[in-house]
């Protein structure tokens, strides 16, 4: 559109180029100066010819008003141009020149004088500078002036000045002819140069117009291509907006699901926080119980140490008892030997008593008693020995049991120490568990808070997704309208191109 306006403005300027007021004013001033120059030169030439005697001396006085009139006409024209009134300047110059030509004819021999040729100048100048009616008006006005002068001269009312004949007339005619033709030639020169410049300007304008038209066509082609691209882009935009709307809807649905999941996660985090608090409390109670258990283990270790000491004492005592039993057994063996020996002695005595006959009967009775006592002692010793053997056996068993008990006590002490170490480790683990429970509780509380924030954010995202979906639908509508506009533009451009062809 801007290109079109620019082209219209150019066409207007091209049409008014030769008729430009500035140009015309400039040419008018130059023409007026040329006219004044030519007339002044002619007047001076006449004055010189008069002074040297070739022309009548009366012409000298005539030249002064002629120069003054010409100067006035040229000065008024230039002043009007300077004032910006070109139309006034043109009228002053054309009609002033016509009046001057009429006056010059009067002063230069009348209608049959050499200045009659001067009427052609203002008419020709009006053809170049004047408006459409100036030529006619100047022609008619010139005819009128000529007829008035002719009638006046024929009736004797007007008597022209400086009527000459012969050589003087020829010289005068030649001077006027040269001046008139020179001015007309100058005018033609101005006209031709102006016409040539005008033609050149028109050609340049035409060429510029052609180039502009060509660029306009290229722009039009680009516009058609842009319309196609626009249609394709609009189609792609429509497809993208379709996908965007679908994606936004899916995103909103997914965000809703995620929000639900996060809410469930937050609920689970609350449960975990509650469970973690319970774990922390249980760990604290466990820690307290473990402290009591540790004290119990320490006491049991001390008790086991005491038991070990007692067991060692009992073992030593039982061992001592076994040694005493051994001593008793040795004594019993001695008694046994003595009883056996007594038994054998009593038996020998009884045999000897029996051999003594009646005299040894009392001795035999005593020997029998001794033998009986020895047997009883032997039996008692045997029983005691059995008892001692049982005692020794029991003592040995007790010693073994005491040693086993001592070993068991040692193992018990080791186990108690191990239990104490395990209790220490359990205490450490329980402390760590309590600490971990507290940390888990804190972390789950933070997680719960974060979940709530995430839920809030997801709600905002869902809202944004819904707005995005709505925006995508709006974009879809806009894309459809854009497609329609592109199609219309494409059709319009195609029609315009067809018309240009």
């Amino acid at each position, binding site marked *: 559109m801007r290109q079109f306006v620019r082209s219209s403005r150019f066409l207007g300027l091209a049409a008014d180029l030769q008729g430009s007021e500035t140009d015309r004013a400039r040419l008018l001033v130059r023409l007026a100066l040329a006219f004044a120059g030519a007339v002044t030169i002619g007047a001076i030439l006449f004055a010189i010819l008069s002074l040297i005697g070739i022309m009548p001396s009366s012409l000298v006085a005539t030249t002064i008003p002629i120069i003054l009139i010409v100067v006035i006409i040229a000065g008024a024209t230039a002043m009007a141009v300077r004032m910006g009134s070109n139309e006034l300047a043109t009228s002053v110059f054309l009609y002033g020149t016509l009046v001057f030509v009429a006056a010059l004819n009067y002063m230069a021999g009348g209608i049959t004088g050499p200045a009659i040729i001067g009427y052609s100048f203002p008419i020709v100048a009006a053809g170049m500078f004047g408006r459409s009616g100036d030529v006619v008006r100047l022609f008619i006005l010139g005819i009128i002036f000529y007829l008035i002068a002719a009638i006046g001269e024929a009736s004797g009312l007007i008597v022209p000045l400086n009527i000459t004949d012969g050589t003087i007339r020829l010289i005068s005619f030649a001077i006027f002819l040269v001046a008139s033709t020179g001015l007309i030639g100058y005018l033609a020169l101005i006209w031709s140069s102006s016409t040539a410049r005008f033609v050149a300007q028109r050609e340049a304008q035409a060429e510029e117009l052609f180039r502009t038209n060509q660029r306009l066509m290229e722009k039009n082609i680009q516009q058609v291509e842009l319309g196609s691209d626009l249609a394709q882009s609009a189609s792609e935009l429509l497809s993208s907006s379709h996908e965007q709307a679908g994606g936004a809807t899916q995103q909103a649905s997914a965000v809703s699901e995620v929000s639900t999941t996060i809410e469930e996660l937050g609920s689970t985090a609350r449960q975990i926080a509650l469970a973690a608090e319970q774990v922390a409390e249980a760990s604290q109670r466990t820690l307290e119980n473990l402290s009591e258990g540790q004290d119990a283990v320490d006491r049991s270790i001390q008790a086991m140490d005491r038991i070990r000491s007692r067991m060692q004492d009992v073992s030593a005592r039982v061992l001592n008892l076994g040694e005493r039993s051994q001593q008793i057994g040795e004594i019993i063996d001695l008694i046994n*030997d003595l009883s*056996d020996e007594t*038994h*054998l002695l009593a*038996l*020998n005595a009884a045999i000897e008593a*029996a*051999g003594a006959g009646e005299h040894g009967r009392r001795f035999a009775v005593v020997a029998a008693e001794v*033998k009986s006592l020895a047997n009883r002692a032997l039996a008692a010793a045997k029983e005691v020995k059995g008892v001692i053997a049982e005692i020794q056996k029991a003592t040995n068993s007790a010693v073994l049991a005491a040693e086993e008990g001592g070993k068991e006590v040692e193992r018990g002490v080791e186990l108690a120490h191990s239990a104490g170490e395990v209790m220490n480790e359990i205490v450490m683990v329980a402390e760590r568990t309590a600490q971990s429970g507290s940390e888990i509780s804190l972390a789950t509380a933070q997680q719960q808070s974060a979940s709530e924030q995430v839920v809030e954010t997801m709600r905002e995202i869902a809202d944004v997704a819904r707005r995005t979906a709505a925006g995508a639908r709006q974009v879809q509508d806009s894309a459809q309208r854009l497609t329609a506009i592109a199609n219309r533009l494409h059709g319009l451009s195609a029609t315009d191109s067809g018309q240009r062809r």
Partner: protein
Amino acid sequence: MIVLISTATRRYAIRRDDLTSMQVVATDQDLASLSTAERPAIPIDLGALLDPADRSAPGRKHGLVVPLRRRPIVFLVERVEQSIEQATIRPLPTLISGCLRDIWAIGVLDFDDQLIILLDLRAVARSSMAQRPVATR
């Protein structure tokens, strides 16, 4: 007079007259007390002699001293139980005694409802002395 003796597992009867003494033999000194410089006593485990399975543990024994002409024999038994003045001795049947190579058992004693073999300890000592190697003798 009959004397009842007991080995590790059995019980025998002997005649008192076959012995010179009965005494406790617990140590080597006890055994040495029964010997002389020219006639050292020979200790014999009577239970093991009569029955190899009837072997007693070493330790305190009762020694039955049988005086032989060259050396005294000390039969070691577990215990000399008692003496019996009046005892019924049943002699061995002729068929059995005729089959014996050495007549060590001369009869059977019925004591406390138990039949106990009566040994001829002097014959046992002689046979043991005769069976011993010359160097040992």
